[in-house]
């Protein structure tokens, strides 16, 4: 069991900055995120996009903002449980919370801060007949263990980084046959990856089919083949053991919706006049995941919410201790050993 002062659910910019503000109050934090890396949307969806409304930064790339935040919180040495969505919360008799991830990792703390943004990023499903029938029987939306595809025939669909990166990886001595199907001739993925796929296709290691999409699945119990239709209407059947539709991720509020919190329009209602507390004492919600009259979904507003929230968290954890607001310019940043 991981023990800490504040469990932060969501390692996006607001969750990360919470570690800093909590650290100034000598509170330790542990972050949980479903994505395998910190940074939330900034890292997953738009790392190379500029942000213009971070105070004192006329322009900063979302990825750089995350890197800077990670550097800023380094002295406070936060814990991370990454690649695991938080699915369950239980309250103990002594007012502690136990947050459990889908993989079973348990965390205990007197305070939980939900900084979950738009929710958990989950793969999008293509609208194809009989898709459900073949899930885990040849169709998968996430590659958990690449070894599963050793000496197997694999068809991958998509034109983004995930689709191309996996096509390159699996074609490098793992799968016996890799086919990449994409609806267009241009790719959204990183130009380096696109060039690699083209090179591997020339060498015959990846079979590249553009201007086409998988329209139908074949097989009885397990997937046996996919029907690929070209834009010009020409269709062909490709025999395969696996089809991996990798079309990117979309956020879902997920299990948090069932944690007994007041929810309004897919967001958690909080007390904005005081401390961003939810209706459950000890659980706060900050950043894009919360809602209140006048709410603005901006990173800078989330930073403010985090700062105010940790003051209230301190009072809950140390009801008898006095806390005086200290300025970092005067006192510096004293991290944890």
């Amino acid at each position: 069991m991981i023990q800490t002062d504040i469990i932060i659910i969501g390692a996006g910019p607001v969750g990360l900055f919470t570690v800093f503000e909590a650290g100034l109050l000598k509170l330790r934090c542990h972050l949980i995120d479903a994505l395998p890396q910190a940074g939330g949307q900034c890292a997953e969806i738009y790392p190379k996009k500029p942000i213009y409304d971070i105070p004192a930064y006329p322009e900063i790339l979302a990825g750089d903002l995350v890197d800077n935040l990670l550097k800023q919180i380094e002295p406070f040495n936060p814990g991370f449980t990454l690649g695991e969505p938080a699915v369950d919360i239980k309250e103990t008799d002594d007012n502690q919370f136990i947050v459990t991830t889908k993989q079973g990792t348990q965390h205990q703390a007197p305070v939980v801060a939900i900084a979950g943004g738009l929710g958990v990023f989950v793969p999008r499903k293509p609208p194809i007949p009989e898709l459900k029938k073949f899930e885990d029987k040849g169709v998968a939306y996430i590659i958990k263990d690449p070894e599963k595809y050793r000496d197997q025939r694999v068809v991958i669909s998509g034109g983004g980084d995930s689709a191309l990166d996996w096509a390159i990886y699996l074609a490098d001595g793992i799968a016996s046959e890799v086919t990449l199907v994409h609806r267009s001739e241009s790719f959204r993925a990183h130009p380096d990856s696109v060039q690699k796929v083209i090179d591997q296709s020339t060498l015959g290691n990846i079979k590249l089919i553009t201007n086409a999409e998988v329209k139908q699945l074949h097989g009885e119990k397990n997937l046996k083949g996919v029907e690929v239709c070209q834009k010009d209407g020409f269709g062909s059947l490709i025999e395969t053991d696996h089809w991996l539709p990798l079309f990117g991720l979309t956020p879902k509020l997920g299990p948090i919706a069932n944690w007994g919190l007041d929810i309004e329009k897919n967001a958690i209602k909080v007390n904005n006049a005081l401390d961003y507390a939810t209706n459950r004492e000890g659980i706060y919600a900050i950043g894009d995941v919360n809602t209140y009259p006048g709410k603005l979904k901006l990173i800078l507003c989330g930073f403010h919410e985090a700062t105010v929230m940790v003051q209230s968290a301190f009072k809950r954890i140390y009801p008898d201790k006095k806390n005086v607001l200290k300025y970092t310019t005067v006192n510096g940043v004293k991290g944890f050993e």
Partner: protein
Amino acid sequence: METIRLNIIDRTGTEHQVEAPTGMNMNLMEVCKSVELPVEGTCGGMALCASCQVYIETKNFPLSRNDAEQALLDEAWYVEDNSRLGCQIQITAELDGLTVRLAPVDEAIDIDEW
């Protein structure tokens, strides 16, 4: 600033007459959200999520997509020849009287299957 009128057909087929200002630097996704039509606009308007996909129902309306929009529509679902991303359509006077229909929303996997 002037106000234009748009006809937005929601996913149940109901038509909504919506007024939108031209001088507010708004796009069609934002207009839909402002009148509480069921458009998520998940990525905030960066042409990265396709949750604001619409079909342009007005005949002969120019459909030029920008590069980022085209790249995303190459990967999105339910894409038709008249598909556009609402977030990439700026509200201008030329749009007065335009009719659009909201495209179906993506299905995602459950956390349980994750």
